Structures are given as C-alpha cells and as structure tokens.
C-alpha cells in the first residue's frame, strides 16, 4: 500500500515525536510531584522544578505522613489515609452488592414502573450534589451520623447506587436468558439464579464496579468537606487542609509528598487494572 517509503518514514517519525512530546507533557505534573517531594525546601525555592534533587531526602514524605499540621493537630496524613479506607471499603462493598441485586431484579423481573424507576436512577447519577447537601446535612444530624465515618459511608453508598445499578443492569440485560430460564426450570429460586448463575459469571463487571466506586469514593471531596470533622476527614479533605490552610512557610515538598500519598492508591489500581478502569469510564459515560 505504501508506495513511497521515504516521506512516509518522515511522517511516522514526526508522529512519534509529537506523541512522545505529549506523553512527557502529560507525565510532567506527576514527575514534578515526585522529584520535588524528595528535595529539601531550599532547593525548590532556589531552583528548577524539573531538576532532580541534588540532595535526596525522604523527610517530606515522613513529615506529610506523620507530623504535618492538619488543621490544629500535627498528625500528618496517616489518620486520614486510614479514614479514607474506613469509608471506601464498606461503601464500595455495600454499593456494589446493592447494585448487583438491583441490576438482577431490574433485568430478570417485570413490574410496573420499572422503566421509570431506572430513568429516575439514571438521572440521579448526574445531579449536582449541591442540591442535596443541606437536607443531607440535616438528615445526618438527625441520625446522629454528622461528622462520622459511618455518615460518610452512608452518603457514598446512597449516591453510588445509581452507578452500580446502571453497571449491573446493563451487564445482566446482555446476559444469555436461556441460562437463567433453564436454571429456573431446574428449580433454582430467586437467590439460586443470582448466586449460582449470574454472580459467578459477573467477574469482569464486579471488577469494573469495584474499581469505579473505589476511585470515585477515594477521590470524593464535597461530601467529605461538608459532612466530616477533624476526626473523620477523608484524605482529600485533609490534603486540601494541609496545602491551603498552612499559615507559615509553604512547604512545597511536603505538599507534593502529601499529594502523592493521596494519589498512590488510585494510581496503583489504575496501573494494575487500567483496562477495567477504562471500561468503567465508558460504561459510566455511555449510559442507557
């Protein structure tokens, strides 16, 4: 097909040059975060943000992790890192389970209003959460969950159900119905079909949902900022606190280390299972 190789080779070279340049540009912020989190503060102030450290130090990391001032307490990010896990793990598990159950019910059973219900759920994933913040704050106060980890788990589950239901509904809608029917014929009941037929073949969708929810809830900020206090801040809120409310000397290296600490869990998930992350993004965007 390629008759003249020479100009083609040149254009290929240009193509790769552009791609490599863009890739470096995209990697630059994380590179900057990494190298500057390993420099002493003077080196950042008097030097070049792109240069490797002259004096390598892990001190910014230990400071960010265990002694940096978050609000009034010199606790570092560690307790908030733990908070985020305490919020994320139950919220992901619960919302994924509920989503699988809802997806199953919405696809395998017929009842009046199921389409309207699904449409209502679909729209709920788009709403700006500002429109539920005030009543949710009141509700959490009423339930005694204001400023608690449990409260944040609850909120993240409630507003995650729309996504997880969507994922599982679309997955089960494409599931071979003969398998479900023959299992029913063999006497499988409601839970039999779910546990023996659907869930065992939902591996990929479970991974997609768990990754999606993990990333979303780990990175969540608005609910955390609105409904938590110093004992229950998620990591995003603590990090923002560290970076934006430090009154004295701005410790850029500590901020970069802190940002990196907050980024590590989702970056690791992305690197290990990027394929599923992308599938979640696509499933979450090409709705319907």
């Amino acid at each position, binding site marked *: 097909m390629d008759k003249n190789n020479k100009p083609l080779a040149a254009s290929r070279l240009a193509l790769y040059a552009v*791609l490599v340049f863009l890739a470096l540009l995209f990697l630059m912020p994380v590179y900057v975060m990494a190298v500057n989190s390993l420099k002493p503060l003077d080196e950042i102030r008097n030097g070049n943000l792109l240069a490797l450290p002259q004096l390598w130090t892990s001190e910014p990391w230990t400071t960010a992790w265990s002694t940096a001032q978050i609000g009034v307490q010199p606790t570092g990010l560690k307790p908030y890192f733990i908070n985020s896990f305490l919020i994320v793990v139950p919220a992901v598990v619960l919302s994924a389970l509920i989503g699988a159950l809802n997806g199953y019910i919405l696809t395998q059973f017929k009842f009046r209003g199921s389409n309207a219900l699904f449409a209502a759920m679909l729209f709920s994933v788009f709403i*700006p959460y500002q429109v539920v913040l005030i009543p*949710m704050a009141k*509700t959490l106060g009423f339930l005694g969950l204001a400023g608690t980890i449990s409260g944040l788990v609850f909120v993240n589950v409630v507003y995650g159900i729309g996504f997880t*239901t969507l994922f599982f509904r679309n997955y089960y809608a494409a599931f071979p119905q003969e398998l479900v029917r023959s299992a029913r014929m063999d006497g499988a009941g409601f839970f039999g079909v779910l546990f023996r037929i659907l869930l065992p073949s939902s591996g990929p969708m479970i991974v997609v949902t768990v990754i999606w929810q993990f990333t979303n809830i780990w990175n969540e900020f608005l609910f955390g900022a*609105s409904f938590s206090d110093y004992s229950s801040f998620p990591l995003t809120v603590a990090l923002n606190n560290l970076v934006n409310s430090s009154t004295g000397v701005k410790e850029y290296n500590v901020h970069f280390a802190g940002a990196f600490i907050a980024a590590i869990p989702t970056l690791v998930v992305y690197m290990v299972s990027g394929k599923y992350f992308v599938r979640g993004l696509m499933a979450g965007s090409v709705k319907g």
Partner: protein
Amino acid sequence: MRAGVLPKLLLSPSVLLLLVCVYGYIMFTVYLSFTSSTLMPVYDWAGPASYHRLFGLENWSVSLGNLVVFAGLYIGIAIVLGLGFAILIDQRIRAEGLFRSVFLYPMALSFIVTGTAWKWLLDPGVGLENTLHHLGWESFSFNWIKDSDMAIYCVVIAAVWQTTGFVMALFLAGLRGVDAEVVNAARVDGARTWQIYLKVIIPQLGPVFLSAFVILAHMAIKSYDLVIALTNGGPGRSTWLPSVFMYQYTFTRNEMAVGAASAVLMLLAIGVVVLPYLFSEYRKVKRG
C-alpha cells in the same frame, strides 16, 4: 418473569433511598430556596425573594460569568485535544497501550491532587516562571494564577489536563467503530489521510461529539474540588463558580435560602444539558 413479593421487597430500600435522598431532597432544597432561611432552615414561604437577591449579587454574576468562560474553553479544548489525541493514537502506532495509559492516567487522580500539583506548577514563585528564570530566561513571566483576570484560565488548564485522556478514549472507541468500507473506498479514490478524517470519519462521529459534550458540560457545571484545591476561588472571588458560591452562601455566609436557590439553578442547568440527551438515548435503545 413477573416480579413476586421478594424481588419487590429487595428492591424497595433502593427505591426508598432514591425517592427520599435524591428526589425528596431536591424538593426540599427547592422549597428552601423559597423561604427566608439563613443559618438554619426555616419553613416560612418567602416567594422568589432569594432568587431576586441572588440575581442582584455580584458574587453570583461573577460565578456565572466564570462558568461560561470555564465551561466554554474546557469543553472546546478537551474535545479538540481528545479528538486529536485519538487520531494520533489511531495511526496503528507501536506501544499504543502505553500512550493511551499515559494520556488517561490523570482521570484516576483526585481533583484535589491535580489542583495541588498545578497550584505550585503555575505559581510564579516556585513553578514554571521560577524554573525558567533559573534556566536563564529572566524575562519570562507567567503569573496567571495570581492575576484575577487570568486565574480562571489556570482552572481550564488543569481541568483539560485531567480529562483530555478520557475524551480521547471516547473518540478512540468511536474511531474504531467507523465503517472501514467507506474509508477504504475513499483511499482507493486517492483521498489523503487528513481528507479522509475531515470528510469521511469525523462526520460519522456525531454521537461521540454529543456524548463528550454532555459529559464535559455536566462536569463543568459540577466542578468544585479543582477550584478549591487550585485557587480556593481566588484571587479574591475571581475563580468562583456556582458550586463555590453555593457552598459559601450556604455554609459560611449563613444565607441558606440563597445557597439553595443557587443549587436549584445548578440542577436546572444540568437538566437542560442532560435530560434531552438521556431522552434521545432512551428512545434509541427502545427502538433497538
């Protein structure tokens, strides 16, 4: 299969949560916006007073103006770059997976992390400007983030960096679905590659443009975390968006009714963008 009692029973908690915590809360917020609530919700009927007040506030017109600028540039640039990246990647290149991962990884990060990284990258004292001064380009100046007329563009830069890879993934999926026959026919007719893209392929990507627009527009309207981490709304109020306005008026300025009114308007804006799209998608699915 017709739903018996069990499926309905198991679905009902989700339905209840949806009705209360999404649609019930929305109605509550709408009602609050017609009261005279300040620090705490009160339930007197004040008519559209808070909307009158809202429209008279300069903080609101600044927020709205910023949203128009931010959303316009963010959506436009992310779509153009996303399509460009997708076309570059679609040239049967080596290491396609690697390039894709590099362009997409910012999507896995929290906006708070992105905001922190870009906050210092764009800061004249430590970031790009300082770096170039140290490299010998003394006259270089880039202080947008400190300039109230330019700071909103910094939000655009960081947001574009975060989402371009996602838009690229959407377009790549679209490009892979383009009818190969038509493309080959055009090639046989002697069309050049760029002509094929411009005249044959891109016109077929209408639905992808539409989804990308809807997703980006709704993200723009909801943008909050990034602004908080990057500029905290400043300098002054120069990077306030409606989301920042809502939080400020509701939780720190004790004008809850005005805050609620702004949240309602955010929801309306999302509805205008998203509902027609969901409706048309739904009809497509129904027609099969």
